[in-house]
């Protein structure tokens, strides 16, 4: 079929596109958002309907695009009869909900956000059912979990919404991970991630040794999503979501995802005893428990939530029976349940909207005020209870039939039949409560609002769905028949399945069961009505699944870590650090295993100059270690010395690139630490009673340090004297110029061969810079750091003494000459940065060192002129530099996609500049430009945000007010 590819892609793209558009609408543009949502999903429905002729004849559509071929991953979409049926539900009910939500939501809510999330959810759900690749399927699966989380938490100011959202996310996304593992196991056996291949290797998978594990994992995924016992508890909590969300996600679509996967994998996984016992017993338990608990709910949405649990249990039970007819019944009930439950949710929403409450105990007699809603809700509730001539009746009849057949063939005695009748009886009771308690009986005059019929566009969606209930119920063969045949045919292997849809089957045992359930339900309702109203909670107490989940969560989130913290030797960081160092040392010692150090390589002779150099270096390091406590500035200078020595070593040992970068980074690090010194407390030598303990500790640490030092020496020596075989460095040396177009191999590795790593690294750099910025925005310096420094006080005192001088004169003169030199030097340094950048591909240099150079120029300006002086003259926007750099690097990488190459493939050539010679030109250079801009931005942001701290005016500082510092001039 021509255009099928486009149709499938469009189906997927439409909701996501509309979601993106809705996200950018103004917060109160609800008409626009609703129009957008309705149109997008309506268009989706139109596409689905247009696909009908082919699909109904059993055609299957597919679309495949390459994704990551080397991993056997294709982006693939597929549609068959069953998928099509779900697409109709997703788009159709989605469209109705989108109309409904416009009138349901209050104008005060940010409605476009709801639509944006709802549409993204519709897109994910579409992607889930269309996926022809199991990994892609799980991605969409987790997206639905995530969007469900966001939608349940839509009214995030409510604690119930937040908790409900959290619970659902934890349960369903954990299930998603299980599903992923299960599907991967199956894919491993089948030898492909393609769903069709997996579906065709059912025998193999069932015979493999991993079948049991795969089955368990897939079932965990499906059960958590489709609210099966014991994971059912998240659905009632999810009722904190706005009602349109519940109508869409928690009745028609999201919760169907689990059973969708079960139906899809039915030909592969079913047919074994393990499948039969697990799936049918879980289904039966859920069916009964859900129906039983639903009777006790006093919240309308609570009734519907538990009823949904029960109906999904029914579907699961049917799937577990290993009978093809039962599978058809399951598919049929999926559609029926979606139709009547969505309309019931919308009706419950209408009641809530008009009467102001959803509590059955407070409601009554609404039929007088809202007759249309009453009629429609009654029809839908009838379908839920399985009243004849409605769609629910038909699937319930099929359910009874296959249950009876299962009784006969599987020797389960009469248990399923009994349970089925009991659960149906319960469902009659809660349906009656839903209708009788709300719409009939004596009208109440204490309702929060004076009820009346809801807006017409809230009633129309309910009406359409209720009409569908009747249509399917009365004329099943003309309406749902062909769809069901196509759906069943696409799932089941032979596709030649005989089932009849008829309103009247004659006097059958199934009909008798229906009659018994309806009658018993009616009697039970009349008997229990008063008692149920008086009951507050269903009688479960601490054994409710929710309470157990909360306890588990508490154990994993609080008690567990607390226990660990108690068991851990100490809460103090200093001792923990000691523990980490010791562990690392022991681990390294064990790994080396005391191996003697063989000398394989001829050693280079020791150059005395190098030895002297490192004697100085070692002295610097030891000096820094000694001075770091009381003489911070000296320690800083000594550390810089050690850094310079390692810089010289890099030059010595043929690594000019490293030397340049190290030198430049040394400069910025020193400036950074100098800026930080201001905020540390003064440290004065003191001899107190604790000195002995402190000295002991110093000795102990000294021993550890010496051990570590000796260990590192031995390790480094061993590494240096071992020959390295098969180094991949040869590869880079051979291809750097031929494929990367650069002579500087180090730079080519960074921006080309391992460009993706570099991309990750600059992202880290950006994150660190932004973190520093964010941390310092809330920075509260300690009081003693806020008094002017000694030097400043002396300068101010000098100014006060002399009459011709004003406050701040000395300060301004202090750096006048260096400041002038710096200002003259800045263009030179910037030019040098450009030079470093341009030569980077062929000679030592490149984006990293050029970026640091440029930021040094800026920082020098700050140092000489002061923060205010610079920012009055220059717009420094480091955050933009960071963003621009990251985007440039990303765009360079994406650019290669346009030419059909993988991410970050580079292209290089030489540009002939006539008399100026030939200039190398590679796309890698553009990437390097991104690196450059990001490094400039990050280094500048870090340093300037620390520098800005000195400009802060403290809020309450009586101490300083006394010293008369009201006119604190620029800090330098």
């Amino acid at each position, binding site marked *: 079929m021509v255009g099928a590819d486009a149709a499938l892609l469009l189906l997927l793209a439409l909701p996501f596109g509309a979601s993106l558009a809705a996200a950018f609408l103004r917060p109160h543009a609800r008409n626009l958002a609703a129009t957008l949502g309705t149109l997008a999903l309506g268009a989706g429905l139109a596409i689905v309907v247009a696909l009908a002729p082919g699909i109904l004849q059993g055609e299957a559509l597919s679309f495949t695009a390459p994704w990551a071929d080397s991993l056997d991953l294709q982006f693939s979409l597929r549609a068959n009869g069953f998928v099509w049926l779900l697409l109709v539900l997703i788009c159709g009910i989605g469209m109705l909900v989108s109309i409904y939500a416009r009138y349901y939501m209050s104008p005060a809510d940010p409605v476009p956000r709801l639509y944006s999330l709802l549409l993204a959810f519709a897109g994910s759900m579409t992607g889930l059912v269309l996926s022809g690749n199991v990994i892609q399927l799980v991605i969409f699966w987790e997206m639905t979990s995530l969007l469900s989380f966001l939608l349940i938490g839509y009214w995030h100011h409510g604690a119930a919404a937040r908790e409900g959202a959290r619970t659902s996310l934890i349960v369903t996304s954990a299930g998603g991970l299980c599903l992923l593992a299960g599907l991967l196991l199956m894919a491993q056996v089948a030898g492909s991630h393609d769903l069709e291949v997996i579906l065709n290797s059912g025998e193999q998978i069932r015979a493999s040794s991993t079948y049991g594990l795969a089955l368990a994992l897939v079932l965990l995924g499906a059960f958590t999503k489709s609210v099966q016992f014991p994971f059912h508890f998240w659905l009632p909590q999810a009722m904190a979501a706005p009602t349109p969300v519940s109508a869409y996600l928690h009745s028609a679509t999201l919760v169907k995802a689990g059973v969708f996967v079960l139906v899809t994998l039915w030909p592969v996984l079913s047919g074994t005893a393990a499948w039969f016992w697990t799936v049918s017993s879980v289904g039966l338990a859920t069916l009964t428990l859900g129906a039983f608990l639903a009777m006790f709910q006093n919240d309308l949405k609570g009734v519907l939530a538990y009823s949904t649990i029960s109906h999904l249990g029914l579907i699961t039970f049917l799937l577990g029976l290993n009978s093809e007819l039962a599978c058809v019944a399951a598919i049929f009930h999926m559609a029926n349940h979606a139709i009547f439950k969505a309309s019931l949710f919308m009706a419950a929403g209408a009641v809530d909207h008009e009467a102001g409450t959803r509590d059955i105990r407070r409601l009554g007699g609404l039929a007088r005020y809202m007759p249309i809603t009453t009629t429609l809700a009654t029809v839908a509730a009838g379908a839920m209870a399985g009243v004849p001539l409605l769609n629910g009746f038909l699937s319930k009849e099929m359910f009874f039939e296959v249950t009876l057949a299962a009784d006969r063939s599987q020797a389960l005695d009469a248990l399923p039949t009994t349970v089925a009748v009991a659960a149906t009886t319960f469902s009659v009771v809660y349906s009656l409560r839903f209708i009788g308690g709300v719409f009939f009986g004596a009208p109440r005059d204490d309702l929060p609002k004076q009820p009346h019929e809801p807006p017409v566009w809230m009633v129309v969606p309910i009406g359409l769905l209720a009409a569908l209930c009747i249509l399917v119920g009365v004329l099943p063969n003309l309406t749902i028949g062909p769809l069901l045949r196509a759906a069943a045919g696409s799932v089941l292997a032979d596709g030649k399945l005989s089932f009849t849809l008829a309103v009247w089957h004659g006097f059958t045992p199934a009909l008798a069961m229906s009659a018994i359930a309806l009658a018993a339900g009616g009697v039970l309702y009349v008997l229990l009505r008063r008692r149920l109203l008086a009951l507050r909670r269903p009688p479960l107490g601490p054994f409710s699944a929710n309470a157990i989940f909360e306890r588990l969560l508490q154990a994993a989130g609080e008690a567990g870590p607390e226990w660990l913290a108690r068991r851990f030797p100490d809460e*103090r960081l200093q001792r923990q650090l000691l523990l980490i160092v010791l562990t690392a040392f022991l681990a390294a010692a064990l790994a080396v295993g005391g191996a003697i150090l063989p000398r394989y390589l001829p*050693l280079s002779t020791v150059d005395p100059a190098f030895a002297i150099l490192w004697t100085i270096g070692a002295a610097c390091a030891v000096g820094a270690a000694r001075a770091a*406590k009381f003489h911070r500035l000296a320690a800083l200078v000594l550390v810089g010395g050690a850094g310079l020595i390692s810089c010289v070593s890099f030059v010595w040992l*043929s690594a000019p*690139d490293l030397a340049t970068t190290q030198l430049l980074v040394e400069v910025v690090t020193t400036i*950074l630490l100098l800026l930080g010194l201001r905020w540390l407390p003064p440290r004065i030598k003191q001899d107190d009673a604790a000195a002995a303990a402190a000295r002991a500790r110093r000795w102990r640490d000294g021993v550890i340090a010496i051990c570590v030092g000796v260990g590192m020496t031995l390790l480094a020596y061993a590494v240096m004297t071992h020959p390295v075989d098969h180094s991949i460095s040869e590869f880079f040396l*051979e291809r750097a110029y031929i494929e990367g177009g650069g002579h500087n191999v180090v730079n080519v590795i960074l921006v080309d061969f*391992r460009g993706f790593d570099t991309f990750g690294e600059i992202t880290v750099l950006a994150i660190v810079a932004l973190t520093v910025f964010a941390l*310092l925005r809330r920075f509260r310096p300690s009081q003693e750091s806020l008094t002017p420094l000694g030097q400043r006080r002396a300068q101010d005192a000098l100014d006060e003494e002399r009459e011709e001088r004003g406050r701040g004169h000395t300060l301004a003169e202090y750096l006048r000459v260096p400041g002038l030199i710096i200002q003259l030097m800045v263009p030179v340094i910037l030019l040098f940065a450009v030079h470093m950048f341009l030569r980077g591909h062929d000679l030592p240099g490149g984006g990293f060192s050029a970026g640091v150079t440029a930021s040094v120029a800026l920082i020098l300006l700050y140092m000489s002129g002061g923060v205010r002086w610079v920012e009055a003259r220059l717009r420094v926007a480091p955050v933009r530099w960071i963003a621009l750099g990251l985007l440039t690097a990303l765009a360079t990488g994406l650019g290669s996609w346009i030419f059909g190459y993988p991410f970050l493939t580079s292209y290089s050539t030489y540009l002939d500049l006539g008399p100026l010679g030939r200039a190398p030109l590679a796309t890698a250079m553009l990437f390097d430009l991104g690196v450059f801009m990001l490094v400039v931005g990050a280094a500048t942001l870090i340093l300037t945000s*620390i520098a800005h701290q000195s400009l802060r005016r403290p809020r309450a500082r009586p101490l300083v007010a006394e010293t008369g510092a009201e006119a604190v001039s620029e800090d330098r």
Partner: protein
Amino acid sequence: MEIVLAVAIGVLSGCGVWLLLRPRTFQVVIGLTLISYAVNLFIFSTGGLRIGAEPVLSGATGTLALFADPLPQALVLTAIVIGFATTALLLVVIMAARGLSGSDHVDGTQGES
């Protein structure tokens, strides 16, 4: 040369570890800087020490016999820049910790010195 550099790495990391175990935050910062020098030199040295080898290709291709090993250099180059970033982060964290707790002890309380 190897023995000199090995001892240098040992001294740098020893001093760094000693400082890491000290109680004052600034000592930890300096210690971390020293350790990062040691680690950078260590990674760099895994390629073998080469004196006077060409770092930049002169022709179209090269071999390890004639040119310096580019791989450890590329690793260390980014490590140097990231090292700056982590030092900055640590510095800001200790500034904030001092502002909040009023002490520059790593434990956040004015413990024993």
